[in-house]
């Protein structure tokens, strides 16, 4: 919303700079987003100094002037008179737009080229005289822009108003606030007008059929309408406020709306059938051609202004084309009304027609000023000779509203705000805002001015008092409370702990949107695509559903990074919510870990670089993460799960519970995401893990006696899982076996084609004494024997 400063000055005296005014209003809650300077075009016109003047070589009556401003030089031809160097002139430069829309272009005259022109009064629409040089004030200096020099630049406060202050969508509302902030009186009562009325000899009726949507409707008839341009002042201010001048009548309606906030509408009276106005809901199947030429179908919830046969306007939103003011209009009806804000909001949004009028109606205009605003507009038309008002304004006001009076104790206001707001401070603030205030024994009774429809409860008074007093002046004071320990909800705490563990497992965190699309899901799961909760009104085609899994987003993140960082390692996790059960949408946390790219391990220089397995890196990461979470058995069972490599996939079992799957993503899926590298991914349901977190550790005794290490290489069929052999070793290793771990797997010559060699490192230790070979040797024999019997394995090199 835009308010020219000069307009405000009609209401409030101030010498403060515009910046100061903007700051004061902003700190009182009317935010000034910007101070804009309006020059109304007149671009490319500068105050110039004459540098040289010579007679035209070919045409005696012309002079060739060289003029300059701020280092810019131009050549001007004139037949007015000779000028002396140092004289000051308003000059239009190339590209200047004249009132008729034409633009100044360089021209050649008698062999002399000119590229500028001395400006006349007509050039700035100051008068019709094209011969008189536009007079400049004495303060004009070379280099000034002509509109600035003429004081034709308007400073405009551009407000970013909040939804509750419908009363401030006009000059009067802002001026009222400014007067309160500055503690100065309002200079003028804009509604204090009087004009001559001709006796109304025509019948005219207004019938409000749907009073729930129209609290008040006034109609004023005017005769002898003269359609012309409005005044320069009106046009200037309309333009400064972002509205286009049209003709004197339309301009008056807009001007009054901008000044006092009341949207008005002018009908050509002679186009209204039966000289009557009916305010009603649209009938089934009705439509209207609005002034923008669009044919609009109306629904029965929409309020229309109708004559006896058809709608003539969408109430409060836009007028009809057939009844609008035209150059031929002789008689008019001026409408000023109050329409239900909700109804206007719904209608405007259903028709997708937000207008200056609807924007004001939907934020609630001042009900009591409906007739006064109409009179003000009538006065403007009458005063300018654009029409003659007829007596007897029709004012249909079915349900006048009582003023809002609120009583509250000063103590109560202070208990919500601050002890700083004494009774006197409160009363003074409310007085300045035109409340009528009574202060008696600590009880404050205040009646809100009728323009302030946002005031309804005592807390509103507290806010008014606080903002006029100044939020900045309210003393800060930490609350006094009983000491209690702040706690975090278990699930939030668990998520925080899981994140810490994931960071410790060398994973970085990814955070993606909660959305996905079916196409991505079916890229991963072409069959049995999981059901996803659809969004009824998605923003884009790739965000049509809520994600039932984090995997698609994670694959997109991997693909993005592969495009950008080459084959550098990717180790990421995302812990976030997933959504399922479209018929009864629910949400829960999910965890996805992704590993991709090469990582390097180099025991000696000659092995450098050695690619490391993606799968086992992920597995290590998952193990580290789970080990950190709780002291529970971690198992991996081969499984075949859609989207994963059928032979490189495992179910993750933690403390006997299946908590997820991990494995390499199926190469087909990767290629659908345009990922050429191997990606290993784990999808984990964190709920069970959360229940195990933060068990208090129990110390188990460390033996002080030396360990005995034995390495065994076992040759066995390739299909035998290493874990099976490890289990045999653990079982047969009895109490003395401290740990058994695979450290190498070897295939190829000299090992038989269908076999592999798996090397284990066994550590034996006795809690109370030093072990000897003699004690361990029979155990190892038992182990080898069991491996032979159970999985057909044999000791390598034996």
């Amino acid at each position, binding site marked *: 919303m835009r308010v020219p400063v000069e307009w405000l000055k009609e209401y409030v005296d101030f010498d403060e700079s515009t910046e100061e005014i903007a700051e004061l209003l902003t700190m*009182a809650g009317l935010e000034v987003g910007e101070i804009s300077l309006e020059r109304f075009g007149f671009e490319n016109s500068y105050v110039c100094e004459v540098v040289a003047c010579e007679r035209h070589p070919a045409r005696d009556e012309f002079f060739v002037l060289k003029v300059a401003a701020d280092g810019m030089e131009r050549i001007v031809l004139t037949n007015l008179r000779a000028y002396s160097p140092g004289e000051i002139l308003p000059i239009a430069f190339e590209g200047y737009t004249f009132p008729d829309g034409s633009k100044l272009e360089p021209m050649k005259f008698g062999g002399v080229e000119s590229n500028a022109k001395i400006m006349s009064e007509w050039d700035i629409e100051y008068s019709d005289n094209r011969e008189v040089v536009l007079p400049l004030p004495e303060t004009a200096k070379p280099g000034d822009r002509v509109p600035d020099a003429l004081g034709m630049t308007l400073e405009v406060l551009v407000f970013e108003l909040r939804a509750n202050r419908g009363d401030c969508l006009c000059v009067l509302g802002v001026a009222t606030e400014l007067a309160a902030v500055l503690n100065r009186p309002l200079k003028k009562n804009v509604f204090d007008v009087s004009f001559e009325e001709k006796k109304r000899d025509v019948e005219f009726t207004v019938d409000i059929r749907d009073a729930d949507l129209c609290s008040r409707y006034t109609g004023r008839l005017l005769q002898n309408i003269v359609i012309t341009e409005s005044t320069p002042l009106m046009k200037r201010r309309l333009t400064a406020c972002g509205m286009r001048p049209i003709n004197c009548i339309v301009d008056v309606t807009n001007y009054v709306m901008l000044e006092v906030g009341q949207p008005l509408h002018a009908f050509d009276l002679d186009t209204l059938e039966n000289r009557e106005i009916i305010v009603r809901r649209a009938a089934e199947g009705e439509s209207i051609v609005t002034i923008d030429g669009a044919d609009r179908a109306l629904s029965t919830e929409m309020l229309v202004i109708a004559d006896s046969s058809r709608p003539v306007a969408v109430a409060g939103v836009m007028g009809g084309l057939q009844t609008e003011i035209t150059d031929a209009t002789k008689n008019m009806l001026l409408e000023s009304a109050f329409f239900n804000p909700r109804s206007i909001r719904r209608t405007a949004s259903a028709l997708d027609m937000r207008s200056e009028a609807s924007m004001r109606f939907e934020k609630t205009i001042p009900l009591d000023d409906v007739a006064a605003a109409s009179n003000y507009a009538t006065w403007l038309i009458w005063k300018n000779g654009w029409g003659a008002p007829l007596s007897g304004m029709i004012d249909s006001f079915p349900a006048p509203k009582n003023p809002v009076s609120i009583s509250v104790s000063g103590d109560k206001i202070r208990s919500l705000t601050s002890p700083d707001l004494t009774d006197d401070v409160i009363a003074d603030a409310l007085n300045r805002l035109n409340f009528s205030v009574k202060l008696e024994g600590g009880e404050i009774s205040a009646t809100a001015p009728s323009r302030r429809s946002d005031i309804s409860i005592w*807390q509103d008074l507290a806010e008014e008092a606080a903002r006029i007093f100044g939020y900045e002046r309210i003393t*800060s004071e930490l609350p006094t409370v009983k000491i209690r320990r*702040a706690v975090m909800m278990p699930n939030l705490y668990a998520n925080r702990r899981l994140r810490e563990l994931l960071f410790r497992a060398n994973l*970085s965190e990814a955070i993606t949107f909660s959305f996905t699309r079916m196409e991505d899901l079916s890229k991963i799961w072409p069959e049995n695509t999981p059901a996803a909760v659809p969004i009824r009104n998605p*923003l884009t085609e790739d965000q049509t559903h809520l994600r039932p899994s984090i995997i698609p987003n994670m694959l997109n993140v991997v693909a993005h990074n592969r495009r950008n960082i080459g084959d550098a390692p990717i180790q990421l996790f995302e812990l976030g919510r997933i959504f399922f059960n479209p018929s009864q949408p*629910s949400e829960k946390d999910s965890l996805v870990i992704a590993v991709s790219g090469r990582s390097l391990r*180099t025991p000696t220089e000659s092995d450098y670089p050695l690619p490391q397995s993606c799968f086992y890196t992920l597995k290590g990461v998952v193990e580290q993460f789970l080990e950190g979470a709780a002291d529970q058995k971690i198992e991996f069972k081969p499984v075949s799960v859609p989207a994963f490599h059928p032979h490189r996939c495992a179910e993750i079992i933690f403390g006997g519970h299946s908590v997820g799957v991990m494995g390499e993503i199926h190469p087909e899926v990767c290629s659908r995401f345009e990922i050429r590298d191997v990606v290993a991914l784990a999808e984990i349901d964190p709920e069970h893990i959360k229940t195990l977190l933060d068990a208090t550790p129990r110390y188990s005794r460390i033996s002080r006696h030396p360990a005995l290490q034995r390495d065994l290489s076992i040759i066995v069929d390739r299909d035998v899982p290493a874990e099976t052999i490890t289990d045999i070793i653990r079982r047969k290793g009895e109490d003395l076996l401290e740990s058994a771990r695979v450290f190498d797997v070897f295939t190829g010559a000299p090992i038989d084609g269908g076999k592999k060699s798996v090397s284990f490192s066994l550590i034996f230790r006795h809690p109370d004494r030093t072990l000897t070979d003699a004690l361990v040797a029979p155990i190892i024999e038992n182990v080898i024997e069991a491996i032979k019997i159970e999985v057909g394995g044999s000791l390598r090199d034996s």
Partner: protein
Amino acid sequence: MDQELTKLLEDAAAAFKAARNNQELQDAKAAYLGKKGRIGEQMARLKELPSNRRGSFGDSVNKVKTQLEEVFASRKAELDRIKLEEKIRAQKLDVTLPGLRFPVGRVHPLTRVWNEAVEIFMAMGFDVVEGPEIETEWYNFEALNLDADHPARDEQDSFYITGDTLLRTQTSPVQIRTMERVGKPPVQVIAPGRTFRRDAPDASHSPVFHQIEGLMVDKGITMGNLKAVLEEFNREMFGKDVRSRFRPDFFPFTEPSVEIAISCFICGAKGCPACKRTGWIEILGAGMMHPQVLRNGGFNPDEVSGFAFGIGIDRLALLKYGIDDIRLLYENDLRFLNQF
């Protein structure tokens, strides 16, 4: 000592010293000190000698043997040292090859500020709670005085799921849920979480973003309290010298409502692009809880009052780390993530 013994000592010492490796040294040792070696032969000579000379000869042989063992040991040590030196020489590494690195787990900037904010508020006694991301219109709008026709609903274009469920547009529904759950004052919580608005993404808008809701309800909670708590937060979050500015605003669920800005910590409030040359950066919205909202949460506004506030976590992250585009937070480019 007889000449033969002297010669043996010299020969053996020379042989030991000539050994170039352990094997040669062991061979030499066997030749002289072994059972059938030269020293052994001398010992055999002992029996042939007259008994009166046996004693002194035996002493001499033993002396030679001891001396030889010393020579052997020193040569062995020498060879061991040479061998180790060779081994070490062979282990030479090109120290300029890149170090072996595991990717370090990086904390996402959103998580970083989230945790930081949570810690600041917990230190001031705020519990930390959460609520669902799929909300009902009641909790998300109506209970907060935002009925369907409220003009402020325009600013919160929502993603709808089913009839009256939607993705929450703010963390404020947790206000009502918390009051219902706690049941009686005092209530002092923050609720960080994910929020959604149907905004086309640009440098400062994202359809998915994060907020922290804050709430304190008790007898006699004032605007002065609100100011003090949030001033404290701003100083902890952005630095001791940061000043807070409070000015009127409008939210349907608070009355009075407050907009809070901090003095620009980038330019020291002198004016820079980050603060749009104003010296101030708007950082959060707050206010005293509207009586109807307290009632909707089951509290009596005649007995208790409260303040509430909402902070954009994404915005905090952008400001704090100088990130110029919110979309970077959700792109998860490792070149970005690795900076935190």
